[in-house]
């Protein structure tokens, strides 16, 4: 059929036929696969999504006297400088050193500011050596002044992604955006039919050395990305769960701020929106048929992010055509959807790449080696000390009260035992609520006498089979001093307090980031 050299000749002569992946769906539907494969030379793809695993290698040049950078900060965001003397890696998700700024200005924002040509404050501490005597340095830098600024993203362009929903009754703030309680909304993060790796699902054309669109400049694929996986179930050739990934490299000095953006997922952290597009050479009919995949034909899974474990429950399967209607049905409820990646920008990426090729500004390259399409799985991280579960800890038997108790008796129980809260259970031992000294004080003030009228019915609980670390996060999040432990049937099993937890897992919480 065709070769990449032949296509490049056509590009040179200005008569290559280039279409984007959305257009290809219609071309194949109208003209048939055979004709489309002959006619079309290149299909362009595009995505513009939050890609946390992104960053940049920077070289600052040597000061006089010279310094061996040890602790390095750009606009108060730490960059990793444990490589040589004046090299550093600026990671997108690094939060600000100032906890009040936290994720609202992090590594991703520094990357954007550099690409915008803004001045950035550089602060360095060092230990001083004979050859690098300087121990402190403060100055301003800009992209222009840096020797090199290479964006190197270890994991971009996920081939398909999970769709998120939240079954719990509290709002969750995740890397999949804000998830409303009780299946309040659904978020997804793939450009679907335009997405690069969905259009070449077996990596027939993509590999190390493939020239691509990266943040408005020409960049390169430099290998498979971290967590690259190939063994997931496939529908129409496309894995139904997050699978293939790419490592990308590009020159920040040539990038366009229109196609890169520092962002922050609320209460999660900073992330970088990266615009990436891959041209797919139509070398044969098989490759052509893969690029003709429509949103309808791309299956993905809705996952319950309410369960903070490695494997989260699958709610149902869906496809991008359904997600893109803006509504989706789960258990007879109609739920609004949000794309988290910008489909508008993804189209712009694919269109601009198309224009570059049509104008003879961009030539295709043959990869030196192809991204592996089989045999790659992602291993989990096994923790040496397995995560402790709530049921494994020795909790004291809880002191209990009943809904029919009188408030004054409850008050004396609180005082006698010198505690702040008591679980309320019915005759069968099922948890019905919780009462705090504040509730009691309030009841006395309002002249209420029965516990069932003053107790708090919505209780934050710990389930027996939850890891203690998850409970620690819950205690932190709600700023509470303890919570009741219940089994599957809501029977009260004990109480767990903040002190129990800090004794068990120690105080080493990192307060940076957050909001």
């Amino acid at each position, binding site marked *: 059929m065709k070769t990449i050299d032949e296509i490049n000749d056509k590009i040179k002569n200005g008569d290559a036929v280039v279409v984007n992946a959305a257009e290809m769906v219609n071309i194949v539907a109208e003209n048939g696969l055979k004709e489309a494969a002959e006619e079309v030379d290149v299909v362009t793809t595009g995505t*513009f999504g*939050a890609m946390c695993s992104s960053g940049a290698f920077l070289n600052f040049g040597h000061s006089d006297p010279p310094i061996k950078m040890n602790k390095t900060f750009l606009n108060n965001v730490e960059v990793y400088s444990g490589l040589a003397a004046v090299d550093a890696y600026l990671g997108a998700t690094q939060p600000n050193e100032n906890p009040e700024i936290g994720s*609202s200005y992090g590594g991703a924002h520094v990357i954007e500011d550099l690409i915008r040509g803004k001045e950035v404050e550089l602060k360095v501490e060092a230990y001083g050596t004979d050859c690098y005597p300087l121990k402190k340095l403060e100055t301003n830098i800009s992209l222009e002044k840096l020797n090199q600024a290479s964006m190197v993203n270890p994991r971009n362009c996920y081939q398909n992604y999970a769709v998120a929903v939240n079954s719990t009754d509290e709002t969750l703030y995740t890397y999949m*955006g*804000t998830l*409303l309680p009780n299946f*309040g*909304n*659904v*978020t997804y993060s793939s450009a679907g039919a335009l997405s690069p790796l969905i259009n070449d699902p077996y990596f027939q054309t993509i590999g190390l050395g493939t020239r691509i669109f990266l943040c408005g400049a020409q960049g390169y694929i430099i290998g498979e990305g971290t967590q690259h996986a190939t063994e997931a179930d496939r529908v129409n050739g496309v894995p139904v769960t997050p699978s293939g990934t790419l490592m990308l490299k590009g020159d920040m000095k040539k990038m366009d701020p229109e196609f890169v*953006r*520092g*962002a*922050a*997922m*609320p209460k999660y952290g900073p*992330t970088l*929106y990266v615009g990436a597009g891959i041209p797919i050479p139509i070398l044969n009919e098989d490759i052509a048929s893969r690029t003709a995949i429509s949103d309808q034909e791309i299956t993905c899974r809705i996952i319950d992010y309410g369960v903070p474990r490695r494997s989260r429950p699958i709610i149902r399967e869906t496809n991008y055509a359904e997600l893109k209607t*803006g509504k989706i049905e789960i258990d007879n409820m109609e*739920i*609004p*959807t*949000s*794309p*988290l*990646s*910008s*489909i*508008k*920008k993804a*189209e712009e990426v694919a269109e601009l790449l198309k224009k570059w090729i049509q104008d003879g500004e961009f030539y295709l390259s043959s990869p030196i080696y192809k991204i592996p399409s089989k045999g790659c799985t992602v291993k989990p991280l096994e923790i040496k000390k397995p995560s402790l579960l709530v049921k494994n800890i020795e909790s004291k038997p809880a002191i209990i009260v009943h809904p029919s108790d009188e408030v004054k008796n409850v008050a004396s129980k609180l005082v006698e035992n010198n505690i702040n809260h008591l679980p309320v259970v019915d005759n069968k031992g099922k948890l019905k609520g919780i009462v705090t000294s504040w509730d009691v004080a309030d009841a006395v003030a309002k002249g209420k006498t029965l516990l069932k009228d003053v107790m708090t019915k919505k209780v934050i609980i710990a389930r027996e089979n939850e890891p203690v670390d998850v409970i620690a996060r819950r205690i932190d999040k709600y700023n509470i001093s303890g919570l009741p432990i219940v089994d599957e049937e809501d029977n009260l099993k004990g109480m767990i307090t903040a002190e129990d937890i800090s004794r068990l897992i120690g105080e080493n919480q990192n307060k940076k980031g957050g909001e």
Partner: protein
Amino acid sequence: MKARLRFSPSIVSKTIISDTIRIFDINFNILRADISPKGGNMLVEISGKQANDSILHMEEQGIQVFPIKKVVKQDEEKCIDCGACVSLCPVNAISIKDDWAVEIDNQTCIGCGFCTFSCPTKAINVME
């Protein structure tokens, strides 16, 4: 029409609003209210034949009335049309157009600020 009402502390405790609703037979929808002894602020939607007269009346009674066209402002430079805000709006004021641009309908918006908080690029601001 949408308006922001400002009360001085001296009139917070008076029943001006309920009187106004009764006299002018208007639909009066309170979208947001922050009232304290120091005075108050209300975001309201007023409709009905005598809406304009009712506003004059409230002004006579000492309430400052500021008609508003925009409850939130979407910064076009910052917005990347990601759509993260769309499914979060409690009153469906945010929509995705055919070209995948994200638009906020200020007529529907109640200024709850939920989208403001969740926008990854902080592109939406509630107007004061």
